[in-house]
């Protein structure tokens, strides 16, 4: 595989995305809002409770749970960009001339993967950094130490989030073969956030302790296995002949 070819395709996609304002908004605005909203909620609760604030014992449960919300974003945000990247090209009939160039299916798929991976990951990690800084500033007085960064957050942001973004991209490639409308692709694509939402709720209900590194590593392992399986299916779906003769 020639990575340069994939990068050329990804660079072209970036150019297209930056001309579509709705894509930019959906990628960057949601993580920004989440990153400001959670610290704002904690700050608001601290003021409501007066001098007692939120107890440190509650904060140490609440903050990792909030961090886990970035995993839900990782399952959701790539949908916007991946659907435009693949279904958008399908609808605009620009895939056929692209497939006629001296590039392999793998190079095109990897290029599409890069273009759907990098902006969401940059947006989510950027939002997470903002979230951590604001939370540290708000909670330092109660906890007496800076809660972020810590190892568990590192596992969530640098292992789970990238794996979830990859999964979302692969999932979108698979559904791209079945739908011929960008909005439908987004609606189906966003279903991927449900399992992550389920894990988040399970964490909140105390069914899984998301503050324990071993549990996070188990989830990482499961995601890795699913990513490999989905990659296999996505590669089988993204073949020239399939795209031109079987994709709707």
């Amino acid at each position, binding site marked *: 595989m020639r990575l340069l070819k994939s990068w050329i395709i990804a660079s*072209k996609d970036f150019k297209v995305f930056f001309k579509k304002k709705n894509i930019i908004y959906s990628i960057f605005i949601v993580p920004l809002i989440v990153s400001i909203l959670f610290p704002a909620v904690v700050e608001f609760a601290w003021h409501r409770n007066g001098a007692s604030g939120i107890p440190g014992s509650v904060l140490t449960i609440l903050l990792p749970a909030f961090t886990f919300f970035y995993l839900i974003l990782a399952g959701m945000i790539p949908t916007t960009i991946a659907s435009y990247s693949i279904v958008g090209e399908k609808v605009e*009939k620009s895939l056929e001339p692209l497939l006629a*160039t001296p590039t392999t299916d793998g190079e095109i798929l990897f290029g599409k993967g890069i273009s759907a991976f990098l902006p969401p990951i940059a947006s989510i990690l950027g939002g997470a950094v903002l979230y951590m800084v604001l939370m540290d500033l708000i909670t330092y007085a109660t906890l007496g130490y800076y809660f972020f960064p810590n190892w568990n957050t590192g596992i969530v942001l640098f292992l789970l989030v990238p794996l979830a973004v990859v999964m979302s991209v692969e999932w979108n490639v698979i559904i791209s073969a079945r739908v011929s409308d960008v909005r439908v692709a987004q609606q189906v694509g966003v279903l991927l956030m449900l399992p992550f939402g389920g894990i988040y709720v399970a964490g909140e209900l105390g069914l899984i302790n998301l503050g324990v590194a071993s549990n996070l590593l188990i989830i990482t392992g499961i995601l890795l296995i699913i990513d490999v399986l989905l990659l296999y299916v996505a590669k089988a779906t993204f073949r020239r*002949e399939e795209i*031109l003769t079987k994709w709707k």
Partner: protein
Amino acid sequence: MIDTENLTKKFGNLTAVDQLSIHVEEGEVFGFLGPNGAGKTTTVRMLCCLISKTSGEASIAGYDVDKEADSIKIRKLIGYVPDNVGLYDELSAYDNLDFYGKLYDCTEAQRKENIQRLLTMLGLWEKKDVAAGTFSKGMRQKLAIARSLVHDPQVLFMDEPTANLDPEASKTVRDFILDLKKEKRTIFLNTHNLDEAKRICDRIAILNTKLMAVGTPEELERSISGKKTEIQLDQVNDAIIATLKRLPLGNIAADGNKLIINVTNPEKENPIIVNAIVRAGGHIQSVIVVGSTLEDAYLKLVKQIK
């Protein structure tokens, strides 16, 4: 340059292309005529290594379309104008071409030179920084043609390049193809525009899943449909038609007081026809020999398969 031998493509039980054998010379403009669903696009897609063949052989410049290693070499050699232009509407005309130039491994200098040359030839240079999405149909088609040529390919596949264009835009595209012909590029032109095929192509193949005929436009006109004799009478009656039907002639049709008779050798047959009409009491006003057209040939061949 382009060779196929019994090339066949099946989609399940449906045979889209059936045992197609053609040979296209280097520098030739080869027209591929056929009705909708005849297998024209499927053939081009097989030759462009976009879809696999079911059986038979096909090669471009000696490279086998079915071998993975050869397919990349073939794609470097060819340019492809699909029936749907498929441009990136948000990108400028220049950026559309530049992207493809990069994929074809053209250097920056080559890209700049080729893009400027092509956009100038097609009258789009002034619009190079304008988003392709704002272009008219004709401009988009021209840009798609420029895109297929950005890497200076030896072989060009064009799928209905003038379909849905207004007459002026069609003429611009046709003239451009004629310019490419002068550059000795091999052009494989899918079309169902008979007039266009006759004006541009050195040879034409008529396809209706199977190859029906192949030859120069003149050969097809001559050999497939022959000629017609049109005889204007002051009155056509049953006795004249009955007399003519006793002769070994082709199809006889009456259009008002005009008889249209298919003939193979008008010099020999026309005196016999005239003599028979006079003996049957007819009064001849004029006799004209009309050569059959490519359209006649095409319709006859397409009807045969139906």
